[in-house]
């Protein structure tokens, strides 16, 4: 194990230790306030140190890494199937690790100010900060484990621990009655996807005789196995990355505290699915069926999320649906065979979505509500938040030269290449599908981003507030820090120092897909770039025109009868409820009734029958003397007869 792999191994270990130690702190204040303060301070220290340590390690890794590195040791050998403990590092892993650790650090710092007893809080509000910070650390550790893991089982460990942490953190706010249900939904929906993920891993591992990613990629799998495994893996990816039809948990997950939303949406959880596909991309590239399914899934998700975002009133739900839609861009890029474009968009999205959530948190913090119908006119009172949101929304919609423009352009170019020139492993129709969906998505995204900006920051204020104000420094600095990459990260896509650094991290095999940047950088400035720009202008102009006509009305009113349909995201929640939840519950009731009446009934019936039989026989033996004497004589006669017959026969 050399320095590089040691750094990789330490990457998840540092926040893990911080998290585990943090869980041992007293969860809630007991007795004197001083004790709480100590526990809270220690928790803050541990959380921030864990995230900062991880960030330092990730940055160090990015600079030390001068080629793909791998190290592993056998974890356990179960009946000839090898499970290893190991890291597998390349440029993509290091960059994603930096993004994860940076967002985690921002969230840890931001949370110290966000989860603090405010002046208008109830006296008995107890934020239980120590377990909260520890769970964020665990969450970070789990995501970093997914990032560096060199073994599918080890990856699964991080994958599922992340599900658990999201469950715990979404349910954290004890004042929200909907939080426990949302948390449970998040864990369960992703867990249903993980059924497929586990089976896919099992197929690959059994086929290769090892769960090490390098072995799995090197093995020559049968075509049937590979297709089945990739499709099964996609189920898990859909669950984690909130892709149709397993996307339903993500909007509900807004019940979690806002910093947690930033963490889940930007760097962890939803990014994991996309990242896992890039890790195993050679397998997917060899199965056009899986890519086609992924492309359909991505296109549906992309449009579904964008349309659902248009009609939400809750600012966090707009952002949540926009995440669903943006992840659709990433999976779309994967479907047309361009993991670099997907990862580039993943990184820029991590920056601008974290920024948007933290800025929205600042707004919610000051307004005391998440509903945009109660905001408005905050532009002058909250200039820092306003400008940061402008940067974030601009990046989200793809306004040049902000980061999102370049990365989205990369996705569009890849889809266009697949559609028009048949580039990449996917069939051309998948390219067309993704390209058209992505283009429509650009216009819709511009529309709802403009609406969000206008409804929140422009016009007259809708709640007569005493003092809307920019947040305190501890909330402001993470937001400002995130605004830098949200604005500028896209420029890194130009060929130059950044991509030269990354070019050196090519795997030895020139066919390998783990490289983040193609030789020429990721920026494609061709005439077709005008197409999304035009669509962007159309979308933004439509929203602006609607607002111009009536500044008080919600531009979403223009959606007409579609508005409630979009607001409820095509009622897929109801579909899920009717098709999965209710039948399962009914089946449970039936199983219980059947078990108690039939299975146990048979046992009890046997017991009762035995007793009844015994009672009957007993009653027969309780006879009066004459009958008993007659029975004895009859018995003697029978035995004698039998003896005589058998004796005679012999």
């Amino acid at each position, binding site marked *: 194990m050399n320095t590089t792999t040691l750094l990789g191994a330490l990457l998840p270990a540092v926040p893990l230790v911080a998290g585990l130690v943090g869980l041992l702190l007293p969860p809630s204040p007991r007795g004197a306030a001083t004790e709480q303060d100590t526990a809270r301070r220690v928790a803050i220290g541990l959380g921030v140190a864990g995230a900062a340590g991880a960030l330092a390690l990730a940055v160090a890794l990015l600079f030390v890494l001068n080629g793909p590195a791998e190290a592993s040791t056998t974890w356990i050998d179960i009946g000839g199937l090898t499970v290893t403990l190991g890291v597998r590092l390349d440029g993509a892993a290091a960059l994603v690790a930096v993004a994860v650790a940076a967002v985690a650090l921002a969230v840890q710092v931001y949370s110290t100010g966000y989860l603090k007893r405010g002046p208008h809080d109830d006296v008995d509000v107890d934020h239980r900060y120590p377990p909260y910070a520890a769970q964020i650390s665990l969450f970070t550790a789990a995501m970093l484990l997914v990032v560096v893991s060199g073994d599918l089982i080890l990856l699964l460990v991080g994958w599922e621990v992340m599900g658990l942490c999201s469950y715990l953190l979404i349910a954290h706010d004890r004042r929200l009655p909907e939080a*426990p249900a949302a948390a449970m939904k998040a864990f369960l929906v992703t867990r249903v996807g993980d059924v497929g993920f586990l089976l896919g891993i099992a197929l690959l591992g059994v086929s290769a005789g090892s769960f090490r990613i390098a072995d799995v990629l090197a093995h020559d799998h049968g075509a049937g196995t590979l297709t089945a495994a990739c499709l099964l893996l996609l189920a898990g990816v859909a669950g984690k990355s909130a892709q149709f039809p397993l996307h339903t948990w993500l909007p509900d997950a807004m019940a979690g505290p806002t910093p947690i939303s930033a963490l889940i949406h930007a760097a962890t959880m939803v990014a994991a699915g996309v990242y896992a596909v890039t890790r195993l991309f050679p397998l997917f590239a060899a199965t056009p069926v899986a890519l086609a399914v992924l492309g359909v899934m991505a296109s549906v998700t992309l449009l579904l999320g964008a349309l659902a975002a248009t009609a939400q009133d809750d600012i966090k739900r707009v952002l949540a649906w926009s995440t669903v839609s943006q992840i659709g861009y990433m999976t779309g890029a994967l479907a047309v065979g361009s993991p670099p474009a997907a990862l580039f968009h993943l990184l820029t999205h991590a920056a601008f979505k974290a920024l948007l959530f933290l800025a929205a948190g600042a707004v919610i913090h000051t307004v005391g509500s998440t509903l945009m119908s109660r905001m408005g006119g905050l532009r002058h009172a909250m200039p820092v938040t306003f400008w940061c949101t402008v940067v974030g929304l601009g990046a989200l919609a793809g306004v040049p030269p902000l980061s999102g423009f370049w990365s989205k352009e990369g996705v569009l170019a890849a889809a266009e290449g697949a559609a028009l020139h048949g580039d990449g492993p996917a069939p051309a129709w998948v390219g067309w599908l993704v390209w058209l969906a992505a283009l429509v998505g650009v216009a819709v995204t511009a529309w709802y981003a403009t609406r969000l900006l206008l409804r929140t920051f422009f016009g007259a204020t809708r709640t007569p507030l005493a003092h809307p104000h920019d947040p305190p420094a501890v909330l402001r600095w993470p937001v400002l820090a995130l605004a830098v990459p949200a604005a500028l990260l896209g420029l890194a896509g130009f060929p130059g120092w950044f991509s030269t650094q990354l070019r050196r991290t090519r795997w030895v095999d020139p066919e390998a897909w783990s490289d983040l940047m193609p030789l020429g950088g990721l920026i494609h400035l061709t005439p077709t770039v005008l197409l999304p720009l035009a669509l962007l202008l159309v979308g933004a102009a439509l929203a602006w025109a609607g607002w111009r006509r009536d500044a008080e009305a919600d531009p979403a009113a223009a959606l007409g009868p579609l508005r409630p349909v979009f607001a409820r995201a095509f009622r897929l929640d109801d579909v899920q409820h009717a098709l999965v939840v209710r039948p399962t519950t009914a089946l449970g009731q039936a199983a219980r009734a059947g078990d108690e009446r039939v299975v146990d009934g048979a046992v009890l019936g046997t017991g009762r029958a035995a007793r009844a039989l015994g009672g009957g026989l007993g009653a027969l033996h309780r006879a009066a003397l004459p009958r008993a004497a007659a029975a004895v004589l009859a018995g003697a006669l029978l035995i004698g007869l039998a003896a005589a017959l058998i004796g005679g026969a012999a």
Partner: protein
Amino acid sequence: MTFGEFLLVAVLALPVLGALAVAATPRDRAARVVGTVAAALTLVAAVALVAGRGMGWVAYGATPPAVRPWHAVDLPWVPGLDLRFHLGVDGISWPLVVLTALLTLLCCGYSLWRVPAGGSGRALVALLLVVEVGILGTFLALDLVLFFLFFEVILLPMYAIIVGWGGDGADPAAVDARRRAGRKFALYTLFGSVLLLVGVYVVVAAAGTADIVALTGGAGLSRGTQLAAFTLLAVAFAVKSPLWPLHSWLPDAHTQAPTVGSVLLAGVLLKMGTYGLVRVAVGVAPEGARWAAPVLGVLAVAAILVGSLICLAQTELKRLIAYSSVGHMGFVLLGVATLTATGIQAALIGNVAHGIITGLLFFLAGAIKDRTHTGVLSELSGLRETAPRLSGLLAFAAVASLGLPGLAGFWGEAFAVVAAVEVGGALWLTLAVLAALGGALTAAYLLRLLRRVTHGRPTPAVAGLRPGLAGAELVAWVPLVLLALAVGLAPTLVLGVAEAPVEALVGVLR
């Protein structure tokens, strides 16, 4: 007598002597201390068994036997009937021996602090030690008749524990309920034992020996005998394990038993069934096992699905955990049914993990019921508001139970699925898919449990709780928490010793 043989005898003799000493000690508390010390010494001896392994066996003959105990004691016992007192320990039995000794120690230690209403603590501890003797003997016996005897030793003391200390309250209905549960447990498992006895004598009569070492691998039994023997033995062990649909004694017994009784029942008693299946049924009648494997697999998956679905509709805390055992043991039985090295190793680690995690769950359920005096889920809510630590531990145990990767429960369940995939073919792939879906259902009912018990506003029953935990509770629970983590992170703890014996066993299956 070598040190290993001495330890082997000590593991059985210590709890026997301990039980006698407890019975002879007049003062209640002193007696409980004596019992706990005896249980602690047993644990030390059980752990020490691992020392000097590999020196115990000698490869004799061209084909070494499939069972190669690290240490063995083989003494004539009733020469007239050709009964031998033959004990031995190997990598398959040792983890279970240690688990048994550990859980008994924790139960005895817990009884130092709290004795459930109904009887004297002295008698309870003595009975726990007798149960321990039976379980340990079952895991150590290498003679079929001896195995059967130890298998039966447990029945009456466990019945006494359920009836004497179980239930909640002294009102006639509660007394009646626990009597009925105890009776059902005793009669149902007795029914299994009758089949076991017949099965044992089918084998012994056909092979002319009761030595498990000699018998493993079929030992010249005809196909017909093997099928008959496997059917009898498998049904007998299926009652104990329990395998759906022979499980209905379990929910009542587990629900009515006192906390320590439930812990031992779920933690190790059920393992006698799965251990017997691996060591005796599969080992002695491999051809029968191959013949019956698909049926066993289908029933195991049915157990997983039905058990999980029933849990989804359960309304009582302990009953829910009891039914969860049906599902979890379904994974273990699925692993055995695949008859592959992967599957059997998954079954072994699944056994140990279930013992650790369900033991912990029953301890916690007992603590919740002791504090709130109710186990009805609708009367429990908001535990995390008033008792955050207890609620945190419950969440940990539930998460471990749903098979979170990185904790003990994961390996057994995931690799039972992997083993089914490994066998391949339409049937086993279907079973793998259904078992994996069962994993999602497991998550569903455990999360439902957590949501009901820990989240929300506190109910009146929960509102008055004090946040702290007693020292004795921590002492009893922390080892289980640490083990759930340790086995999850380092499965080698259990499987490292089991690799060679499982390979040997699978070798005779081919």
